[in-house]
């Protein structure tokens, strides 16, 4: 009986003249109320043994027929008609999909995560440090003496009725970490810092910095250049160029500033009009007075330290022209990341 049905259907298929008639055939036999479908459904009532045999056969025939319809359909249209191929109702694939609700990482988190991954791959451990600091760690231990104009470089928030301040950089963690650990060491410290200054498109009362520190017996400036070039190439792409020029930080000697030059549009409104080299990092070889402050044997160790502004990197990477956008919680900004 099944074979007869099969022959009949195959004949009809071969005689079909267009897609519509093929669709009719499909409905007639394989649709919900189709003849073959009914046969398949009726198998339930048979004994187990019979069911197995007939069921297998019926399914084979069903597949064969579906295949034939599909092949024939392709001949007509030159391509597979999805309705026939998938045996489902037609859907408009060009209509918009239903979007799942999605959240977004903060751009600084994105940049921070990427930087952490790059440095971890170079053997640097990632640490966290306190945002409230003592004068000692924020200044004294870093060779920034009291009543010295050098301190004016860091406009500081102080707390009321208590001898503490909001850290002005992540550098205090250099001293905190070295006090407790002997070299060789490689760390980075990302974190929020504060500066008491007027806000504008490139300055805000808070910002993010990543501190880096590598100390060993022979860690030199050559290694600094190697590590930082490696970092910059992975962060900005292989075409980025780097330039070192003299700088001054009380806690490094020699000190240098790192500038970069990128291909393509890089200038933000904040940097517009200035030369095409962009300043991104302060760095240097750790000052012997810092080693002394943390209790290292004089002359035994050497290494480099650097500080890089995360806000600035994120601004460069995503072409954001106002630092304050990071901190105003505006979803119109946040949802773009």
């Amino acid at each position, binding site marked *: 009986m099944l074979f007869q049905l099969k022959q009949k259907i195959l004949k009809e298929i071969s005689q079909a003249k267009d897609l519509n008639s093929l669709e009719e055939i499909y409905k007639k036999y394989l649709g919900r109320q189709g003849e073959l479908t009914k046969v398949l459904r009726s198998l339930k009532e048979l004994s187990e043994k019979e069911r197995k045999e007939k069921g297998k056969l019926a399914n084979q025939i069903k597949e064969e027929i579906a295949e034939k319809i599909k092949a024939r359909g392709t001949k007509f249209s030159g391509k597979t008609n999805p309705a026939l191929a998938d045996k489902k109702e037609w859907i408009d694939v060009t209509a918009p999909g239903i979007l*799942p609700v*999605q*959240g*977004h*990482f*903060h751009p600084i*988190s994105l940049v921070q995560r990427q930087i*952490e991954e790059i440095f971890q791959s*170079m*053997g640097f*451990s*990632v*640490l*966290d440090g306190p*945002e409230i600091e003592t004068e000692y760690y924020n200044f004294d231990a870093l060779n920034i003496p009291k*009543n010295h*104009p050098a301190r004016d*470089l860091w406009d500081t928030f*102080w*707390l*009321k*009725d*208590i001898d503490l301040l*909001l850290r002005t950089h992540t550098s205090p963690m250099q001293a905190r970490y070295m006090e407790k650990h002997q070299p*060789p060491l*490689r760390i980075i410290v990302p974190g*929020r810092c*504060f500066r*008491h200054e*007027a*806000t504008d498109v490139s300055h805000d*009362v*808070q910002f993010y910095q990543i501190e880096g520190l*590598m100390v060993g017996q*022979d860690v*030199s*400036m*050559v*290694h600094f*250049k*190697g*590590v*930082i*070039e*490696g970092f910059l190439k992975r962060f900005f792409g292989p075409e980025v160029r780097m330039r*070192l*020029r*003299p*700088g*001054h930080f009380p806690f490094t*000697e*020699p000190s240098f*500033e790192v500038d970069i030059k990128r291909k393509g549009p890089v200038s933000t409104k904040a940097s517009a009009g200035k030369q095409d080299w962009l300043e991104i990092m302060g760095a240097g*070889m750790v000052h012997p007075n810092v080693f002394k402050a943390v209790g290292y044997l004089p002359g035994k160790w050497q290494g480099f330290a650097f500080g890089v502004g995360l806000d600035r990197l994120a601004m460069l990477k995503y072409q954001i022209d106002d630092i304050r956008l990071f*901190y*105003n*919680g505006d*979803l119109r900004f*946040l*949802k773009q990341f």
Partner: protein
Amino acid sequence: MKISYDWLQSFFQKKLPVPEKLADLLTRHSFETELVKKVGPASKAGKQDYLLDVEVLPNRAHDCLSHLGIAREIAALLKYPFEIVDYAKKIKVDQKELIQNFVKVENKDKNLCSRYTARALINIKVGPSPQWLQERLKICGLRPISNIVDIANYVMLETGQPFHIYDADKLESKGKTKTIIVRRAKKGEKITTLDNEKYDLDENILVIADEKNPVCVAGIKGGQGPGIDGQTKRIILEAANFSPQIIRQGSQQLNLKTDASWRFEHQLDPNLTEEAVEMAAYLVQEIAGGEILNGIVDVYPVKIKPPKVKLDIKKVESLLGIDISAKEIKEFLERLGFGVETFRSKNRTTEARLEVTVPTRRIDVTIPEDLIEEIGRLYGFEKILSQMPTATLIPPARNEDLIYQNKVRDILTNLGFSEVYNYSFVSSKGVEVLNPVSQEQKYLRPNLAINLIKNIEENKKYFNEVRLFEIGKVFEKNKNKVIEKKRLGAVLFPADFYRLKGVIDTLLNKLRITDVWYNEVSRENIRAEVKIGNDLLGWLGDNIFELDFEKIVALATEERIYLAPSKYPAIVRDIALLVERGTKVVEVLNLINAVGGHLVRDVDLFDMYEGEEIPQGKKNLAFHIIYQSDDHTLTDKEVNKLQEKIMKVLEEEGGWEVRR
């Protein structure tokens, strides 16, 4: 600092590179320099010039806040021959009268004033300065006033030594000889400065005084008293050296910053005063005429001599990572004006050591590392290779906090929440900041909620739905400490308690934190405390929750144990109850679980309804109960019996109406 290109050129016979090239050279080896603009010529007699903006580094303010200092740098970088003019030899002393009979200087504190140098001129003629001088001052941003005042400024811009000139006839004195006293001001003393501002003085301020009154705030600004005017005939030229601390303190107290105070604050070389005074005397004579009195007043109690620093070549090579010979080092340092002596070790097996004599103007150079910086920048940072360090392969330490921070961000963004970074400051409550930037940011935030709620208000204007979270530190004062804690906060708009609770449950579940329960509390904005055992993890409201992030990290785990699904089928039965509105779901759940025992795999609340068709004050609760056994297929009979038992207990012990 504003630098004139033409002025720089005047130090050299050889032609300087074009301004762009010169700026680039200085940027790479000395200070970031920008070519600002082309200037002039202002008159037919004037020259074309270029203005350079040189950002002198703070540690070089001693010697480079001057055209002379920048010219020295250029000479070293380009190997240009460079000699400074010896003005002492150029001036013509044609008066027999000794300066000592004219003016005498009393220095009351040699720690505050390490040197005071003066010359005097008579019969000078005050008038406008010549064009070339005016133009140079203008390009550097100063306004020409009169030849004498302009010379004082000109000398400062050329040498870096602040300079002051007094009209000698306006200094009060009993006798013929004028007395200049360097002393601390007395409380109650006042001064009116040249720009007509009045200041109250006290012991923290160093002044220059005549026999009666302060006539100048030392190192900061001159007083009106002995100011130069059109009638001035006899002048005293002062070049002194003051302690950076007293100038800084005075400048802060008076809130008065000047070109002079800026230089003194950064400390100057006392040996600079003499050449500055000679230069000024020469210029006055050339420009304003007059006769120079014989001799010089020079109060210089402790003469500063050039210090010596030992330098190990190995150290140079090791810190910079380059190969360099003693000869090269010597050449670099000598170009910068350092004296270098080489000591060969006797057995010739070890490297030579150098003894470097540091010119007194280089106050920044005190240790070998300072010299290494000089060598490095002359050698050229761009020539230093870049190479990955060879270090022992130690895997970086695992930072749990960071790992979970990222994990929580992943989970919450997947749940549709976007991350915000708010300010650490709030307008009320919390640890107070001594010097806030505004009333809005006067305190450190005691929680994340305050700013998160504001985020909702702002975003409501643009979005129908707002879901935000933040991970950040909050602050709390505890005696003499400030405790900072990391928190996780999230807000939801429109408010929906159960959805937010679901977010917490999903989050904690993904972090494998179990045993969370919610303790009903009723405080402003708060519905429940989120607890783990007895531990408070945070709190939850209708539109916000805030959790202790450090506790989350401590409790979270990446451990998982796989449980095989039961081989036997599960049977689902529903129960619907009519209960009082105030009945807690957890009470019902507890009872079902207690009665059902291990065969009850799970109980799901799938409906909670009050309103139409439900009696006033009541609500309908409907549960799926999933029955399953690990060791056999449950029969209908077994399940029916258990279901019946559960319903009975719910009715009898719970006192609830089971809807059959």
